[in-house]
């Protein structure tokens, strides 16, 4: 049976090897609404799904969506499991050393704290954040104790069950969560972090030019702003 499976895979490989190389695999996390999530039909959905499909259409690429855990999303890009990261990833200098970014498709955003009560200790308490995010790096710099989780949902769950005093993440993710839970509220002042959200690609990949061109054209004709307002609400920052 194993050999059957393997040979089926080998056959499929042989069959697809002759296909055009312009299949672009879009790597995303699928756990970060409204940026990207797995919808009720079990498909990748969200702002970045809509954006990615439009960028691929404009750049004349055939794209396929691939899920990958956040904490291994960069290593799996560099080792070639997929060709782009489109997962709400903020452009930072540290990441830019390992991978390349396109220009930002979301302007620099604010990160916020969400807690059960207004007097949560944001400076000295326990703050939950997702592993390998700029928010986790920021919390580590403050006096607070950083509590890291693999998925965004677990960071919020940690606040609900009292494990953490507050959770720190992009406002676009946390604000809808806080708005729909009577116990949770945005506390403290928002913090501006990161240089906007862009697509991550392997260093020196030719696809960067194609995606930058497509983002330019979406910025120029206003469709990018429309998309941002549609997914992130009327108050979202636009280009």
């Amino acid at each position: 049976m194993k050999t059957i499976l393997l040979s089926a895979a080998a056959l499929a490989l042989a069959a697809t090897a002759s296909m055009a190389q312009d299949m672009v695999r879009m790597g995303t996390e699928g756990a970060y609404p409204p940026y990207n999530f797995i919808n009720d039909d079990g498909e990748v959905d969200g702002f970045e799904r809509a954006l990615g499909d439009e960028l691929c259409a404009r750049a004349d690429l055939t794209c396929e969506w691939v899920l990958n855990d956040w904490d291994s999303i960069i290593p799996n890009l560099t080792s070639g499991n997929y060709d782009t990261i489109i997962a709400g990833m903020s452009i930072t200098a540290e990441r830019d050393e390992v991978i390349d970014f396109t220009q930002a498709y979301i302007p620099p955003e604010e990160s916020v704290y969400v807690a059960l009560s207004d007097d949560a200790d944001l400076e000295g308490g326990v703050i939950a954040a997702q592993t390998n995010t700029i928010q986790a790096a920021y919390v580590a710099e403050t006096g607070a104790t950083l509590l890291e989780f693999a998925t965004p949902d677990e960071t919020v769950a940690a606040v609900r069950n009292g494990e953490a005093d507050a959770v720190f993440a992009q406002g676009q993710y946390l604000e809808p969560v806080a708005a729909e839970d009577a116990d949770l509220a945005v506390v403290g002042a928002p913090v501006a972090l990161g240089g906007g959200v862009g697509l991550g690609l392997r260093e020196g990949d030719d696809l960067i030019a194609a995606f930058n061109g497509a983002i330019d054209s979406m910025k120029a004709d206003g469709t990018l702003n429309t998309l941002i307002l549609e997914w992130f609400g009327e108050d979202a920052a636009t280009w």
Partner: protein
Amino acid sequence: MFGFCTDPDTLSTLRWFACYLTNGAHFLFYQSFLVVFALLAITAPVSLAFGFGAAAASRARIAPLRWIGKTYTAMVRGVPDIVFFLFFILVFDQAIEYLRHRIVCPDWTEPIRQGANFLVCDAARTPQGAAPQWVHELYGFALAVFTYAIVFGAFCGNVLYGAMRAVPRAQLETAEAYGMRPAQVFWRILVPQMWIYALPGLSNIWLILIKATPLLFLLGIEDIVFWARELGGSRTSAYQYPHPDWRFWYFLGLLVFYLAFTRVSEIVLDRLTVRLSHGQATMAGEEQRRAARA
């Protein structure tokens, strides 16, 4: 699924759940149980074959063969499963890519290892970057099955080796006295009689194998644990069916599934023990013989 599911916000509780539990994401969850069953259905016989080979090799008269059999069982049994899984899959994957790289890109001059990266030429990528997603998934699954088979094959090898030694020596000597060749003694006398001695050990390994299936999740395969965590997490109204954190219920469901599955396995294995004891020179076989006579 149902006609009344078009607007979830207006549904009564019962209908809401009927729609919720039959949406597309849940069907993927139900399908992932098939992934687990497929893994078991393929891994169990393959491990048994690996184990049989290892046990036979460990008893071989040719010394190098014996060393291979013993080293394999001792090495795999001595390494923690999780370490072996994470390590072996990586190594196996890289070995395939490296070999293909040497074959299809002989002119490549850049080093393959660049810092933490393992970079082979595009033509050697396995699977190919342009291959559809299901090929990537099947490839990952095949790697996982192979690794499971190697790990559990080593355990089976040890059990079968012990079982072969447990067959009464007198049985084999009698066969030799009848003039059977070593291969005939092995296949006609030893192998048919060893199963009853192997069964307690093999049934243990089967239960451990069932319980090891959630390791698939660690290997990035979308198995039942992946979907339980995904569907159980709290959901805002970005989704059609918003709900609070229900991971407790989903993981409870998995617990019940595994308990039921192992219980059914135990019942089947008990019956198999009764069957295999029939006519054997073991205590259970002896009891059956007495009961039949009384």
